[in-house]
C-alpha cells in the first residue's frame, strides 16, 4: 500500500535492459532464465536463431543480414509472457488440487498453494543460485489485494454486518491495539534477556513488529473459512474484524515507523497518531461511499450500452481503493464501503446479464489474486533473507497465540454486556483460533527500511514462521475442531417465498413491539434509514424507481425465469410471445392480457419452486447459480411430468382442468 511508503527495492536479479515493472516475475523459470541469457547480448528485435550474422558495430555496408526465416524474440514479450505463465501455473495448480476430490476438504487450498510456491522457489533457487525475487509489495498492495477485498465486500451480507457492527469494530480496533502493544512489550521483555542475543532491538522496533504481526488477514481468513461453513454470525465477526483492522494497522505501522526514525517523541505526536486513526478510517469509508454513489448514479444512465456496465463497477471500486491509498487512508475500508454501497443500487439498474457478468468476473479475479498471493508467499520464503534465532521466533509465535486468546476472551466479556445475543465460549474459541495471519503482514515486513532495522531478516523469519503456523496448523485443524466442538454451521437452504414472507412479517412484528415499548433498537434505525433511502437515495440513483418489496421482486424474477424456460422448452406454445428474450433484454415485459397472466400463474402455482438465492452463501469459489440451474432443471422435469399427466387425462393441453384442481384444493 502506498501508505506504507515507497518500498525499498528488494534485491532482485534483473537484467538491466528490462523495465522494472514486475521484477518478481523476472525469475519465472530456469528456462526463461536461459532464454534471457542467450538474448541478452543481442539488440532487441534482432535476435536471430541459427546462423544469422549479428550486425557488426562498425556497420559496414557490405555485410548484410540475410532474411531470417525463423526468429525468437523473447525480450519483446517477456513481461506479458511471464505474467501469463504465472497465472496459468496458478490456475493449473488449482485444477490439480481438485482432481483428488478429498484433498480440499482436509487441507485448505492456501496451504497447497504455498507448498507449490515453496517448490517453485526451491527450483529457482537451485537453478540460479541466488534468492528468488521476493514478492514486490507494490504489486501486492496495488494489484493483488484489491480484487479479493472487492469480492468480499460486494457479497457481504450487509444486514448481518451492521447488526454486529459494534462487536466487529470493538474487536478490530481495541483487539488489534491490545495485540500489538501486548506482543510488542512482551517481546521487548524477552529481548532484554541477554542470553538470547537480542538486546539491540529497541522497544519501538518491537512495538512496530507487534503492530504488523497482530493484523488478522482477510485473505487467509477467507481462504480457510470458506470451506468450513460456520454459521454466518461467527463468519461475519472474524471476517469483518479482518477488514476493519486495516485502518488501525496502517496507523500503528506508520506511527511506530516514524517514531523509530524520529529522535525525540513528544506527547503531541501520540495525539497526532490518534487523530490520524480517525482520519484514516473515516476518510477511507467516506471515499468509498462517495464513489459508490457516483457509480450507482452512473449506472442509472447505462441502459443503452449494457455491454460496458460491469466495467463501471470495477473501475469505480478500484478508483476508490487507489484514491484512498493516494491520501494514505485505508484503501481496504474504502473499497469495502464502495462495494457495499454500490451493491444495492447497481443491482437494480443493471441488466440481468451484466449482473451475472459482474459476479463471475469478480469471483474470477479474486480467485486468481488469492492463488497468486499464496504462491508468491511460498516463492519468497525460499532464499537468503533469513536469520534464525530460536528465542525470538518461538516467543513471537507463543505471544501471538497467547495475546490473541487473552484478547478475545477479555474483550468478549466486556462486549457481551452490550450484545443481545452473547457470544459463547465456543464462539470465542473459534474467533481466537480464526485469527490467521497472512500476506499483509508478510508484505509489511518486507517494507521495513533496513537502515532503521538492522535485524530485519530476523523479523522476516519470525513473520514467516507465524504465517506458516497459522495457515498450515490452524488452517488444517480448524475444520476438525469445528466439528468436534459442534459449532453451529450455516444452513445452506435456499430461501423460499414463504421464508421471505415470514422474515418480513417478523421484522415488522419486532419493529412494532419496539415501537410499543418505546425502544429504539436496531430495527428503529434500520427503518429510519430505509425511509430516507426510499425518499431520496433511490429516487436519485435508480432508474425506474418503483419502491419494490423484495418479496415481489423475487417472485417476479422467478416468474420471468420460468416463463422463459417454458417457452424455450416448447411446452407451452401459447405462452404470450411478448415474454420473450428480447423484451426481457430491455428489462420490460409488455403487459399480458389478464387471461394469459391468470393461466401462467395457475400453472406456476401448481408446482414447486424455489427462489433464486439472492444472498451468497460463503463459498467464494462457486456461485449459487449452480444450485439454481439444477433446480431449474428439476422444475422443468416436474412440470413436464405433471403436464404429461394432465395431457393423458384430458387428451388435450387444456388449462381448465389444472385451474379447477387448484381451486378445489384450496376452497
Amino acid at each position, binding site marked *: 500500500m502506498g501508505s506504507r511508503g515507497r518500498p525499498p527495492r528488494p534485491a532482485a536479479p534483473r537484467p538491466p535492459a528490462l523495465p522494472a515493472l514486475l521484477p518478481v516475475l523476472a525469475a519465472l523459470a530456469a528456462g526463461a532464465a536461459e532464454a534471457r541469457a542467450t538474448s541478452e547480448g543481442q539488440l532487441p528485435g534482432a535476435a536471430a536463431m541459427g546462423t544469422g550474422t549479428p550486425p557488426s558495430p562498425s556497420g559496414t555496408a557490405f555485410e548484410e543480414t540475410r532474411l531470417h526465416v525463423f526468429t525468437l524474440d523473447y525480450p519483446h514479450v517477456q513481461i506479458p509472457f511471464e505474467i501469463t505463465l504465472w497465472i496459468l501455473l496458478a490456475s493449473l495448480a488449482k485444477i490439480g488440487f481438485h482432481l483428488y476430490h478429498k484433498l480440499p476438504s482436509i487441507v485448505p487450498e492456501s496451504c497447497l498453494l504455498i507448498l507449490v510456491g515453496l517448490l517453485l522457489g526451491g527450483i529457482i533457487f537451485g537453478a540460479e543460485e541466488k534468492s528468488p525475487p521476493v514478492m514486490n509489495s507494490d504489486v501486492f498492495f496495488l494489484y493483488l489485494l484489491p480484487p479479493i477485498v472487492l469480492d468480499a465486500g460486494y457479497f457481504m451480507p450487509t444486514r448481518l454486518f451492521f447488526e454486529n457492527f459494534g462487536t466487529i469494530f470493538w474487536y478490530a480496533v481495541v483487539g488489534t491495539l491490545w495485540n500489538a502493544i501486548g506482543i510488542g512489550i512482551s517481546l521487548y521483555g524477552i529481548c532484554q534477556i541477554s542470553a538470547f542475543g537480542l538486546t539491540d532491538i529497541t522497544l519501538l522496533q518491537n512495538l512496530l513488529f507487534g503492530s504488523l504481526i497482530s493484523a488478522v488477514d482477510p485473505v487467509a481468513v477467507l481462504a480457510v473459512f470458506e470451506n468450513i461453513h460456520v454459521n454466518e454470525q461467527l463468519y461475519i465477526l472474524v471476517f469483518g474484524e479482518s477488514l476493519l483492522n486495516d485502518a488501525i494497522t496502517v496507523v500503528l505501522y506508520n506511527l511506530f515507523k516514524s517514531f523509530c526514525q524520529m529522535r525525540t517523541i513528544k506527547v503531541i505526536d501520540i495525539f497526532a497518531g490518534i487523530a490520524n486513526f480517525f482520519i484514516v478510517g473515516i476518510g477511507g469509508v467516506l471515499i468509498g461511499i462517495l464513489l459508490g454513489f457516483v457509480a450507482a448514479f452512473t449506472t442509472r444512465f447505462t441502459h443503452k450500452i449494457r455491454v460496458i456496465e460491469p466495467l463501471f463497477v470495477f473501475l469505480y471500486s478500484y478508483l476508490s481503493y487507489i484514491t484512498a491509498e493516494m491520501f494514505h487512508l485505508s484503501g481496504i475500508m474504502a473499497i469495502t464501503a464502495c462495494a457495499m454501497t454500490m451493491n444495492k443500487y447497481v443491482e437494480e439498474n443493471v441488466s440481468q446479464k451484466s449482473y451475472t457478468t459482474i459476479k463471475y468476473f469478480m469471483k474470477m479475479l479474486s480467485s486468481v489474486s488469492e492463488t497468486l498471493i499464496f504462491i508468491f508467499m511460498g516463492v519468497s520464503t525460499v532464499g537468503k533473507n533469513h536469520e534464525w534465532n530460536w528465542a525470538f521466533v518461538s516467543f513471537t509465535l507463543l505471544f501471538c497465540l497467547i495475546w490473541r486468546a487473552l484478547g478475545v476472551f477479555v474483550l468478549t466479556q466486556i462486549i457481551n454486556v452490550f450484545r*443481545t*445475543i*452473547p457470544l*459463547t465460549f465456543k464462539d470465542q474459541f473459534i474467533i481466537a483460533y480464526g485469527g490467521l495471519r497472512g500476506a499483509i503482514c508478510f508484505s509489511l515486513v518486507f517494507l521495513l527500511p533496513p537502515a532503521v532495522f538492522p535485524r530485519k531478516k530476523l523479523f522476516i523469519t519470525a513473520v514467516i514462521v507465524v504465517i506458516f503456523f497459522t495457515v498450515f496448523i490452524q488452517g488444517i485443524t480448524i475444520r476438525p475442531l469445528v466439528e468436534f466442538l459442534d459449532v453451529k454451521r450455516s*444452513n445452506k*437452504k435456499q430461501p*423460499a*417465498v*414463504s*421464508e421471505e*414472507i*415470514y*422474515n*418480513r*412479517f*417478523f421484522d*415488522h*412484528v*419486532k*419493529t*412494532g*413491539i*419496539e*415501537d*410499543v*415499548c*418505546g*425502544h*429504539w*433498537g436496531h430495527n*428503529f434505525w434500520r*427503518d429510519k434509514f430505509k*425511509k430516507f433511502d426510499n425518499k431520496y437515495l433511490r429516487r436519485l440513483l435508480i432508474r425506474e424507481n*418503483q*419502491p*419494490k*418489496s423484495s*418479496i*415481489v421482486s423475487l*417472485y*417476479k424474477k422467478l416468474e420471468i425465469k420460468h416463463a422463459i424456460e417454458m417457452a424455450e422448452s416448447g411446452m407451452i406454445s401459447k405462452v404470450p410471445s411478448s415474454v420473450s428474450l428480447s423484451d426481457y433484454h430491455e428489462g420490460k415485459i409488455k403487459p399480458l392480457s389478464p387471461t394469459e*397472466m391468470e393461466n401462467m*400463474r395457475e400453472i*406456476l*402455482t*401448481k*408446482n*414447486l*419452486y*424455489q427462489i433464486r438465492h439472492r444472498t451468497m452463501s460463503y463459498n467464494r469459489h462457486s456461485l449459487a447459480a449452480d444450485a439454481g440451474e439444477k433446480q431449474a432443471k428439476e422444475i422443468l422435469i416436474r412440470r413436464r411430468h*405433471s403436464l404429461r*399427466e*394432465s395431457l393423458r387425462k384430458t387428451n388435450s393441453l387444456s388449462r381448465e382442468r*389444472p385451474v379447477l*384442481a*387448484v381451486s*378445489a*384444493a*384450496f376452497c
Partner: protein
Amino acid sequence: MGVPRVPAPVTSLLALAVTSEQIEHLHRRFKQLSQDQLTIRKENFDSIPDLEFNPIRGKIVHAFFDKRNLRQESDGLADEINFEDFLTIMSYFRPIEMNMDEEQLDRFRKEKLKFLFHMYDSDHDGKITLQEYRNVVEELLSGNPHLEKESARSIADGAMMEAASICVGQMGPDQVYEGITFEDFLKMWQGIDIETKMHVRFLNVDTIAHCY
C-alpha cells in the same frame, strides 16, 4: 412519577423471568400508553406515532388483545388489558438466557412461535388457511402502492404450495391441503433461530419516544 406502584399479581410474573428492572420500565411505558389508567384499550395504541407506518399494525395491536396470547382459557378478543396482561405479551419477547437447558429452550421457542402463529391465524381455528395467508401477504405488501392485488394473491398461493410440499410432500392433483397447522408451522421455521432473533431489549426504554 415517584415509586412505581407495581401491582401485586406481578410477582407471579417473576416466574416469567422478566427482571424487576424491566418490569419497572414497562410499567412506566404502560402508564404512558394508558394515560394513567389501569387498562389499555385498542384506541390507546393509536397514540404511538411510529406504529402508523407499520403495515401489519392491525395484527400487532390485535395480538395484544388476543386471549390465546394472554394465556386465558377462553377464546376471542379481550376489550382491554391491564398491566399484567401487557407484561405477559412482552414476555414473549424476552431474550434467552445462557443457562437454559435443551428442554427449556425448546419450550421457549414453541411459545414464541405460537405467538406468531396466532398472528397469522386470525379466525382462531388453529389452522392458517389460504385466505388468511393471502390476507397476511396483502397486509405486508400494503405499503407498496404500485402493487396489484393479483400479485399479492399469487405470492400467497405460491407460498402455500411450498408449505404444502414441506408438510405433506408430493400431493396428487385431487388432494386437498386444508391449512397450516401449528406442527406444520413449526416445521417451516425449523431452520430459523427464532429464539435468538425474537427479543426486544426493553431495558433501554427511551422515554423520549412518547406518545402524543
